[in-house]
C-alpha cells in the first residue's frame, strides 16, 4: 500500500489504501445518514389531539419536519404563525383544540410556529414541509406582517427578526437581512444536511437546558445580593440566605453595597456559592415554593420523587425555582448555542447520554417570558397607527403567496383564513388602510381561485394584542369557521345550515 516501504507517513499512521478509503467513507456516510433516521424511530413524539410544537423547540426545524410527518395522518392541518400556535393560551384553548371540539375527534392538527412570519414560513414549508405533501392545509394569513416597512422586512438598515435562517440565503430578497456570503452558503447547506438538523434538535431539546448560573445570567447583582438576606420574607430567598456559607453571605452583603459589577471577587464568590446550592438535592422544600409561579418543567420535575431525579434534573429544577423566585434578578434559563459548546465543562461528571433522559419538552410549556394573557384593553396597550405596506410591493405578502405555490405544487389543497386581525386596536386612518389591504388580499385569493374565508372581527376584549385572540376568542373563531360552509366543505365536514362569510 505504501509508495515506499521506508517512507515515514506519520506517527501512528492510520493509513488506508484507496479501496479501504471507499469502504471507510461508505460506512461513515451510512452511519451519518442513519443517525437522524434511527433517531426518528427511537424518540417518542407526543401526538395527542392538542399537540403543538413545544415552545422551546420553535427553532427546531428538524423536529417540525417530524411533527409534519406525524400530523399528516390528520384530516386537516392548520399552518400559520403564533396566532395558530396559540401564543397566549395553553394547548386546550388553541384554535385547533376548539375546531376539534366542534367537529369531533382529532381532525385538525396544529402546525403553527411561535414567532414565525411569512418569509420564514415560506422557507419552513419549502425545506421541512415535505411530510405534509398531498394533505389538506388551512393556511392562516396574518396581515400584521405588512403593517409597516419594519414588519415587512423592507428597511434598508440591518434589522434582526425571528427565524432568520429560514429566509432565502442565496438571493437578496430581504434588504434588512445582512449576513456574510459565506455564512449564507453555510446556512443554506446546513438546511440540506439531515445530520445538521438532527444536531440542532439534540442541542435544543436535550443539551440546551442550562442550570448553572453564569455571570451573564444575573440581571441585577445588587438586587440579587440584597435579597439574599435571612430576614427576607420570601421563604426561598430566606432558605438560600440561610444555606449560604458565611463568606458567601459576606460577599452578598458587599455586592449589595457595591456598584453591581459582575467581575468583582465578591460577585464571583456569590455565584460560586449559589451554584453549589443549585447542586443540592435538598435545596427545595415544599414550604419554600409557596406562591412561586413555577414553569411547567419545574412543576413536572418537582412532582417526582426527588431521589429518582438525576443530578442534572435536580440542578435544573433548582435553577428554575430560583429564577421563579428572583424573576427580575436572574435571567430565564433558555437555550443558548454557545453554552451547548461548553456543556461538558458545565457538567463535568455527567455522561452526555444522560441528557437524553430529559425527554422532549412538553407542548404545554408556556412561552418565555410568560405572556400576559389579559385583553389588550386591560394591559395599557395604546391604539396604533401603522403606515401599512402596499400588498403589491410587500415582501411578506410575496412570501405568503410563495408558500401557497409551494403547497399547491406538492399536491396540497389549500384553504386560507384571513385574520382575525384586531381592528379595534387601529387608529381610524390606519383602519381604512388596513381594510384596503384586506380587500386586496381577498381579491387576490379570489383571483387565484383559492378557497378562503375572512375571519370575523372578534369582540375587542377577546384579543390579547393586535392579532392574537385569547382563549374565548379562539372558541368564537372556531365556532364561526365551523359555521362557514366553504370551510366545512374544504375540511370534509358535513354541511351545516349556517350563513357563509366565504367566497
Amino acid at each position, binding site marked *: *500500500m*505504501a*509508495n515506499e516501504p521506508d*517512507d*515515514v*507517513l*506519520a*506517527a*501512528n*499512521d*492510520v*493509513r*488506508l*489504501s*484507496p479501496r*479501504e*478509503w471507499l*469502504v*471507510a*467513507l461508505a*460506512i*461513515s456516510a451510512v*452511519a*451519518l445518514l442513519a*443517525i437522524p433516521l434511527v433517531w426518528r424511530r427511537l424518540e417518542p413524539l407526543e401526538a395527542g389531539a392538542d399537540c403543538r410544537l413545544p415552545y422551546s423547540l420553535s427553532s427546531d426545524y428538524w423536529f417540525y419536519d417530524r411533527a409534519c410527518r406525524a400530523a399528516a395522518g390528520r384530516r386537516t392541518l392548520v399552518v400559520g404563525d403564533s396566532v395558530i400556535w396559540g401564543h397566549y393560551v395553553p394547548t386546550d384553548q388553541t384554535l385547533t383544540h376548539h375546531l376539534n371540539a366542534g367537529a369531533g375527534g382529532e381532525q385538525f392538527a396544529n402546525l403553527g410556529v411561535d414567532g414565525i412570519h411569512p418569509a420564514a414560513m415560506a422557507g419552513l414549508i419549502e425545506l421541512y414541509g415535505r411530510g405534509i405533501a398531498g394533505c389538506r392545509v388551512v393556511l392562516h394569513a396574518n396581515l400584521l406582517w405588512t403593517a409597516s416597512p419594519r414588519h415587512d422586512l423592507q428597511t434598508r438598515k440591518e434589522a434582526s427578526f425571528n427565524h432568520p435562517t429560514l429566509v432565502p440565503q442565496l438571493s437578496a430578497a430581504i434588504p434588512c437581512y445582512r449576513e456574510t456570503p*459565506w455564512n449564507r*452558503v*453555510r446556512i443554506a*447547506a446546513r438546511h440540506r444536511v439531515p*445530520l*445538521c438538523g*438532527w*444536531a440542532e434538535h*439534540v*442541542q435544543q431539546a436535550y*443539551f440546551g437546558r442550562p442550570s448553572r448560573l453564569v455571570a451573564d445570567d444575573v440581571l441585577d447583582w445588587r438586587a440579587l445580593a440584597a435579597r439574599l438576606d435571612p430576614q427576607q420574607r420570601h421563604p426561598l430567598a430566606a432558605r438560600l440566605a440561610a444555606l449560604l456559607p458565611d463568606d458567601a453571605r459576606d460577599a452578598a452583603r458587599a455586592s449589595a453595597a457595591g456598584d453591581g459589577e459582575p467581575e468583582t471577587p465578591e460577585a*464571583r464568590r456569590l455565584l*460560586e456559592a449559589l451554584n453549589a446550592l443549585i447542586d443540592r438535592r435538598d435545596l427545595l422544600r415544599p414550604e419554600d415554593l409557596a406562591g412561586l409561579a413555577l414553569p411547567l418543567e419545574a412543576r413536572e420535575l418537582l412532582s417526582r420523587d426527588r431521589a429518582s431525579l438525576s443530578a442534572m434534573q435536580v440542578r435544573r429544577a433548582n435553577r428554575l425555582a430560583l429564577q421563579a423566585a428572583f424573576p427580575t434578578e436572574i435571567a430565564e434559563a433558555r437555550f443558548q*448555542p*454557545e453554552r*451547548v*459548546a*461548553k*456543556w*461538558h*465543562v458545565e*457538567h*463535568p*461528571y455527567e455522561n*452526555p447520554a444522560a441528557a437524553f433522559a430529559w425527554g422532549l419538552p412538553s407542548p404545554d410549556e408556556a412561552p418565555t417570558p410568560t405572556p400576559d394573557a389579559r385583553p389588550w384593553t386591560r394591559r395599557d396597550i395604546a391604539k396604533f397607527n401603522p403606515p401599512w405596506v402596499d400588498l403589491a410591493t410587500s415582501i411578506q405578502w410575496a412570501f405568503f403567496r410563495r408558500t401557497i405555490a409551494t403547497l399547491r405544487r406538492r399536491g396540497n389543497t389549500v384553504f386560507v383564513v384571513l385574520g382575525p386581525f384586531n381592528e379595534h386596536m387601529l387608529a381610524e386612518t390606519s383602519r381604512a388602510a388596513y381594510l384596503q389591504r384586506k380587500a386586496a388580499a381577498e381579491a387576490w385569493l379570489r383571483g387565484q381561485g383559492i378557497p378562503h374565508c375572512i375571519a370575523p372581527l372578534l369582540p375587542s376584549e377577546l384579543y390579547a394584542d393586535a392579532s392574537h385572540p385569547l382563549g374565548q376568542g379562539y372558541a368564537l373563531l372556531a365556532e364561526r369557521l365551523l359555521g362557514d360552509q366553504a370551510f366545512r366543505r374544504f375540511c370534509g365536514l358535513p354541511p351545516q345550515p349556517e350563513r357563509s362569510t366565504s367566497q
Partner: protein
Amino acid sequence: MLFHTWTFVLFFLIVYPVYLATRRTRFKLPWLLAASYVFYGAWNPLYLLLIVYSTTVDYVAVIGMSRTRRRKPWLALSVVNNLGLLGFFKYGGFVAESLNALLAWAGLPFAVPQPGVLLPVGISFYVFQSMSYTIDYYRGQVDKEPSFIRYATFVSLFPQLVAGPIERARNLLPQLHEDRRISLDDVADGLSLFVVGFFKKVALADFLALYVDRVYGAPARFAAPALILATVAFGWQIYFDFSGYTDMARGVGRMMGFRLMLNFNNPYLATGLGDFWRRWHISLSTWFRDYVYIPLGGSRRSDVRTYVNMALTMLVSGLWHGASWTFVIWGGLHALGRVATRRLESTAVYRERVPLAVKRLWVFAFVTFAWIFFRARTLADAWLIVRRIAAFAWHDPACPLLAIGLVLAVWLYQALYESRMRGLLRPAPVRIALVACMLVYAAVHTAVFAGAAAQQFIYFQF
C-alpha cells in the same frame, strides 16, 4: 484560512483540479504561487508585502553569493534582514516593554515607544524556512535556485506556510522541480493524514481547550487539582492542535505530490528530554540543531561548552515561541532539564534498569510542568499556579471525565503503537473501523458541541 473550515474546502476544491491539470505545464508553479498567496492573503493582504519582500531579499542574496567569492556579506544581508523582520514584528513590543520596565525601575523618566504593529501570521515559520536556504547555500549544501517563481513557491507553499513543518530547501525545492506522478495511494495517504489531523483538532484539541481556557483564564479561582488537570490537558491540547495542523498540512501536501517532513512522533512516549525534542516539533528542533547548536560548537568541545550550547539553543527556542518572559522561562526550564539529564540519560542504568513507564512518566511530568509557563497569560499567573500546585489543597477540579477518557484512549493507542502489540492495529478491518469511528465521532461532536466559529491553531500566534 484554516484547514478545518469550509472556506478551505472550497479553496482546495478550486485549487486542486487546476493544479492537477497544470502539473505538467509551465503554469504549475505560477498557479501554486498564486494559490499560496491567496491562502496567505486571506488573513490580511498587507502581509503579502512582507512575504514577497523577505523572499526577494533571500533570493537576491543567493544570486549575489553565486556571483562573488565574498559571500559573507550576502549571507549577513539575509540573516540580518530575516532576524530584523522577526525582531521588529515579533519582538519590538516585548523589547520596548522590557526596556520601559527597566527604565521605570531605574527611576529614569524615559519611555521607549511601542511599535504597535500586528504580528503577521506564520512569520516565524517562513522566515526560518527562507533563511535556511541562504545558509545552506552558503555552506554548499544546496544549489542555487535560478527561478524566482519556484523559490517564492518554496517559501510560501500554502500547506506548510503558516505553521510548518519548517521545510528545508534540500527537501522541498527538488520536489518543485520534479514532475512526480500523483497516484491514488498519494491521495489516499493524504486523506488519511488530513482526517487524523482534523480529528485531533476539532474533536480533541478544541474540546480540551474549553477546560484549559476556563482554568487558565482565571487561575486565582482554582485550586491545585484543577490547575494540575488543566496543565495536563493543555499539554495534550497543544500536541493535538499543532500536530493536527501538521498532519493536515502534510496530508494536503501529499495529495499534491509533496512529501513534507514528519513533525511529531508521539512526543509523550519519550523516555528522556533529548528523546522528547527528537519527537516534538521536529522541523524546528532540527533547524535549531543545524543553525544554532552546531554553529555554536555542538558537543564537539568540552562538556561545559556543550551544556552552554544546549542551554543557549533551548533559550533561543523558547524565545522563538513568543515574545514574553514566560516563553524564555519555558525555554530555560527545558535547558535546565536537558543539562541536568543529558549524562543520566546516556547511562546504562537509566537505559536498561529504569522501567519504560517510569521514564515516560517523568518526562511527561517535566514537560507538563514547563507548559505552565508556556500557557500562563503572565508571569504572575504562572507563579501563582506553581505556588498553588506546590501547596496542594483539595478542591473539586470539575474536569470533564470525557476529556480525561479521550486523552487516556489516545495515550493507550500510542503506547500500543510503539509496543510489540502494534500488529493488532495492522489488519484492514481495524484501520477501517478506526477511521470510520473518527469520521463519525468528529462529525457528530462538531455538529452538536462545536460552536459555529472555527478555533484558531495555537501555533499561529508564533
